[in-house]
């Protein structure tokens, strides 16, 4: 269980995150949504302990993350960054192996190949990372994160994937591949927290969507509850029409959106 309690954070004395309380259970995919600059990434970074919180606490599987050694934390959770730069000409396989060595699966000989195959980069193992396209780089880092927490459930409970805009630079097909992987990880007992821009994809794959606006949590619930026109209009400052297909969740047609 990921428990975020009354978390607040500042950047240069500007409050970016205000008193956010959020719980994610194993088996769930939580999508953190909201407009640009609302504090989505700050929420993720503060929840990861990457930046100091001004107040509040975060615990993972009942353990306070503030006092945990990085090596122990690395066996419990993996993080997909938004910034995918790598210095020096490491190969794709070497980068994925870094994730494997950080987790509990260092002895699994074929894991790098399987993780790369899972993200559709099976033929790219020997390529130099810096020669890849943006989308391929992002998927390489996803394979690295997967290799780190390959088993969704470990001896200390669920393992966790934290994804910062995992589909931002991907084409439609790879967006689906990546989100299916995240969904599968949660269905097998792990926990997934993803910062997402695309509301439709979030509604498709997430169990819950949490909306952050101006640093505060304004809604948290299943997509069909929180994808409401009034809520989205307030959050994004534009007129929206939420639609529904028979027998599926809610969806949003950008063509039907316009200024308020």
């Amino acid at each position, binding site marked *: 269980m990921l428990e975020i309690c009354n978390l607040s954070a500042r950047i240069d004395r500007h409050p970016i995150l205000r008193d956010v309380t959020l719980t994610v259970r194993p088996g769930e995919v939580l999508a953190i949504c909201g407009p640009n600059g609302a504090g989505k990434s700050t929420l993720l*970074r503060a929840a*990861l302990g*990457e930046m100091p919180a001004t107040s509040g606490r975060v615990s993972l599987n009942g353990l306070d993350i503030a006092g945990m*050694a*990085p*090596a*122990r*934390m*690395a*066996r419990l*959770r*993996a*993080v997909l*960054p938004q*910034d995918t*730069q*790598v*210095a*020096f*000409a*490491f*190969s*794709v*396989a*070497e*980068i994925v*192996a*870094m*994730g494997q*060595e*950080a987790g509990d699966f260092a002895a699994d000989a*074929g894991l*790098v*190949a399987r993780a790369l195959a899972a993200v559709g980069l099976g*033929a790219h*193992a*020997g*390529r*130099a990372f810096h020669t890849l396209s943006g989308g391929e780089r992002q998927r390489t880092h996803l394979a690295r994160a997967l290799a*780190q927490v390959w088993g969704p459930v470990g001896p200390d409970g669920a393992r966790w994937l934290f994804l910062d805009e995992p589909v931002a630079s991907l084409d439609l097909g790879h967006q689906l591949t990546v989100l299916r992987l995240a969904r599968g990880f949660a269905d097998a007992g792990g926990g997934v927290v993803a910062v997402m821009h695309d509301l439709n994809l979030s509604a498709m794959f997430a169990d819950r969507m949490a909306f952050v606006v101006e640093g505060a949590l304004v809604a948290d619930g299943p997509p069909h509850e929180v994808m409401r026109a009034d809520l989205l209009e307030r959050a994004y400052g534009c007129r929206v029409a939420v639609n529904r297909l028979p027998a599926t969740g809610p969806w949003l047609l950008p063509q039907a959106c316009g200024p308020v």
Partner: protein
Amino acid sequence: MSVTPTLTGRRPAPLSLTTGLVGLVLAASLLSLSSGAAGLGPVDLARAALGEGLSPRDQVVFYGIRLPRLAMGLMVGAALAVAGTLLQGLFRNPLADPGIVGIGAGAGLGAVMAIVLGGALPPVLAAWAGAGLVPVAAFAGGWGATMLLYRVATAGGRTDVAMMLLAGIALAALAGAMTGVMVYMADDRQLRDLTFWSMGSLAGATWAKLAAALPLIGVALGLALRSGRGLNALALGEAQAHHLGVDVQRVKRGAIFGAAAATGAAVAISGGIGFVGIVVPHLLRLAQGPDHRRLMPQAALLGAALLVLADLMARTVVAPAEVPIGLVTALLGAPVFLWILLRQRGVVRG
């Protein structure tokens, strides 16, 4: 470059490269031991090894001159190459070299201060510090310069390459000016010491000097060999390194300390020898990629071999006179530096 799509994704057989480097070190060592102005050649040495013994004169040449000079070449070469590799991993950029970014100058200032101001120490303290004073002061100077450079050039785990190089120029200028002040203050005997020291040569090798520098180089090598996984992870940025289970602060402290210790020891016993720290890791990365766990031991080996060979060139090209070894390494290394710079053009953040 052709790439073998093996599972490790790397160009094949790293072990054989290490073996080859060990062979290179041995060959360079034998060559260095058996050539020189004294006319003690390979045939004499082979005979000596077969039990015929050396004449007293040849014994002095062998044990008093050639062997310490070889040991110093190996130590200094390994230290400079490892210092460069550590700095490049820390700054995430292949252009970081102790000579180029002012760390050598900082270490030099420390050494000069020890030579000039060391005389003012109370005799008890001076006797206690002894031959170790200059290396330790050089290490302290190098450490201060590295810390300063890291503070200036790196923010939030990202190194600004232009800032790193510019700050290096400023650091070198500052250390150079302060060294000038020290030289101005020096008396005649100290000036003589300074001149010998600053020529940047392996000619003044003595066992006492080597013994004084050995602990620092040992510490640096130890830190370097343990820092491989951490520096690899650091290539992904500090936040990601942390999420990969690496104690980032500890890796950074170790790299700074190790680079300063290696540079300080090398500068203290041999003056400034440039470009070894940039050429050696670069060649090895071209040969088999940037994995620091392999890079560190191999850099030590190749650096040792390269410096012994450069020294051999320096003292045989115009024998019996000597070319400063720094000239040889600069002639080889400066073009490599320019080449890396050209390849990096357009890359904003290494």
